[in-house]
């Protein structure tokens, strides 16, 4: 039963063919058996999970179940969950037990989902390989010698190995779509402002957005129904009516215009990935979609702009970690300033330190205009490219990552090479658009490849529609990694 997608498990729970306690024990058993080898979890709490499962069973018995009631889920370890350790993959927060719930955690609890654990991640969500975690790298279930992608690598690996049917993640520059692509899972990053950031440890506030991993598009839509919605505790939460993200899933694709950005299909893209993505586009055409070439002329500037804006926001957000109110405090120091300096040097890993330093520099006196303001101006140009492109198409299709998952250690000494992993995902964050990745085949080394779909603002339902129709005709999303059966 572990291999069933979210919607099928929900139906069995509703029909009382299985109890939430049985289902939760099944997945806890898989985590115990396969979890440690993948290092996908930082915290697992069987006792809390089983208590939540029994509460869900009582609710289902009363006939008051919602679509996710009784479903085991995992949260990326940057969503604060009351009474749970929330580490953000960092030594800085290694012992931090949250005194409150994130909005997303609250919403899943309210829906009756069963939280089984918190997943591993790149420290403070900074990374594209999950090698930057204080708790060690996550391994790719398709090949344990390779990375699962990042920063939501633990969630991606957990869903890929069917350790949980669903997990949350966050996507600041590709941190859901790129690991989804690398692990053969489906992952969605909604429009900026659709999911509240309240209780989500901040990295780059104008780019961070919570989202979800699942086997297929229907599960993602069900999770978005729970996660998305206005929350006054997030000042950038968008106040708009609740929508049902499953409403368009089955709509035929006849007449849908799929934009193919010519800047995505260049020599930067590995031929194996290009072949899978092209085949996926042909399947959409077979179903009646029409392809149009579009152009994103400023695409090449997305990574450079991101590495000014994201570090700038990070340096400001992470200034709160000073060893005073919570988090790591150094054992020995001379005075207050020395306590700050030592606590931060010990608490933050190398990549987090680098980004704080880059951010500090670009915001410092004399450099602000040349770097930060200029980056914000180019960001506007990048966003305008998408506005132009969406005049000619309904969704944009392309790769989610330039190649399949790479071996652990291959790029860890070269930050700039690592940054280029997010070549096809970062511009979506800069523009604030929604994007998803669904499995579309296997490339070099038998590793999964993802098809990225990008939607217009609040165009999630249309994007999920295209993804779901594609998954009705293909079975890539149902394939299991070798060790997971």
């Amino acid at each position, binding site marked *: 039963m572990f291999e069933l997608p979210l919607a099928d498990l929900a139906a069995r729970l509703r029909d009382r063919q299985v109890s939430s306690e049985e289902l939760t024990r099944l997945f806890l058993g898989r985590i115990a058996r396969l979890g440690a080898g993948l290092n996908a979890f930082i915290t697992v709490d069987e006792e809390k999970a089983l208590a939540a499962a029994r509460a869900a069973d009582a609710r289902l018995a009363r006939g008051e179940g919602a679509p996710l009631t009784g479903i085991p889920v995992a949260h990326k370890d940057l969503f604060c969950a009351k009474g749970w350790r929330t580490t953000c993959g960092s030594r800085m927060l290694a012992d931090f037990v949250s005194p409150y719930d994130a909005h997303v955690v609250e919403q899943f609890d309210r829906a009756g989902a069963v939280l089984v654990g918190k997943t591993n991640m790149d420290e403070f969500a900074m990374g594209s390989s999950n090698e930057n975690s204080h708790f060690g790298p996550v391994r790719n279930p398709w090949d344990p010698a390779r990375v699962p992608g990042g920063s939501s690598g633990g969630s991606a690996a957990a869903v890929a190995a069917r350790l949980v049917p669903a997990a949350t993640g966050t996507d600041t520059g590709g941190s859901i779509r790129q690991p989804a692509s690398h692990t053969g899972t489906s992952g969605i990053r909604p429009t900026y402002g659709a999911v509240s950031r309240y209780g989500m440890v901040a990295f780059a506030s*104008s780019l961070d957005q919570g989202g979800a991993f699942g086997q297929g598009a229907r599960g993602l839509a069900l999770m978005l129904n729970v996660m998305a919605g206005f929350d006054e505790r997030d000042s950038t939460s968008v106040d708009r009516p609740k929508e049902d993200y499953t409403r368009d899933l089955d709509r035929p694709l006849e007449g849908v215009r799929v934009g193919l950005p010519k800047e995505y299909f260049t020599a930067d893209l590995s031929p194996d990935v290009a072949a899978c993505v092209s085949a996926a586009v042909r399947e959409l055409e077979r179903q009646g979609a029409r392809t149009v070439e579009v152009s994103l002329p400023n695409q090449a500037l997305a990574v450079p702009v991101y*590495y000014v804006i994201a570090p700038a926001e990070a340096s400001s957000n992470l200034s709160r970690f000073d060893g005073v109110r*919570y988090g790591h405090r150094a054992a020995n*120091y001379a*005075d207050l300033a020395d306590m700050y300096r030592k606590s931060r040097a010990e608490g933050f890993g190398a990549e987090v330190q680098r980004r704080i330093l880059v951010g500090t520099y670009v915001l410092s006196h004399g450099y602000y205009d040349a770097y930060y303001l200029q980056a914000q101006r180019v960001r506007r140009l990048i966003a305008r490219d998408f506005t132009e492109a969406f005049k000619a198409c309904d969704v944009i299709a392309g790769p989610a990552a330039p190649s399949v998952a790479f071996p652990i250690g291959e790029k860890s000494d070269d930050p700039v090479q690592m940054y280029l992993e997010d070549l096809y995902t970062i511009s979506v964050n800069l523009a604030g658009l929604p994007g998803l990745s669904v499995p579309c085949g296997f490339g070099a080394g038998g590793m999964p490849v993802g098809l990225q779909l990008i939607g217009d*603002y609040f165009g999630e339902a249309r994007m999920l529609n295209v993804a779901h129709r594609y998954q009705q005709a293909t079975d890539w999303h149902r394939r299991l990694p070798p060790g997971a059966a």
Partner: protein
Amino acid sequence: MLSLDEVRRIADLARIEVPPEGLAALQQQLNAIFGLVEQMRAVDTAGVEPMAHAVDMSQRLREDRVTESDRHAEFQFIAPQVEDGLYLVPKVIE
């Protein structure tokens, strides 16, 4: 290109201690990142409004009333060092 002195100055501004033997490697890594960033600086952006946020919106206002309850005990429970409801830090005034 950042000089070693500039790296030291930024580290000080960011309140991060960098051991002297780590400075040169850090300088090299930071300069590689600024090398990547460089191509964006040459773009002509005259007349382009800076985009600070992904979605154009104005700051919401709410009624000026107390909405939070007093939870200082819960929040201070996780602090490294507290006494009588106060956070303790090394002495700053002699």
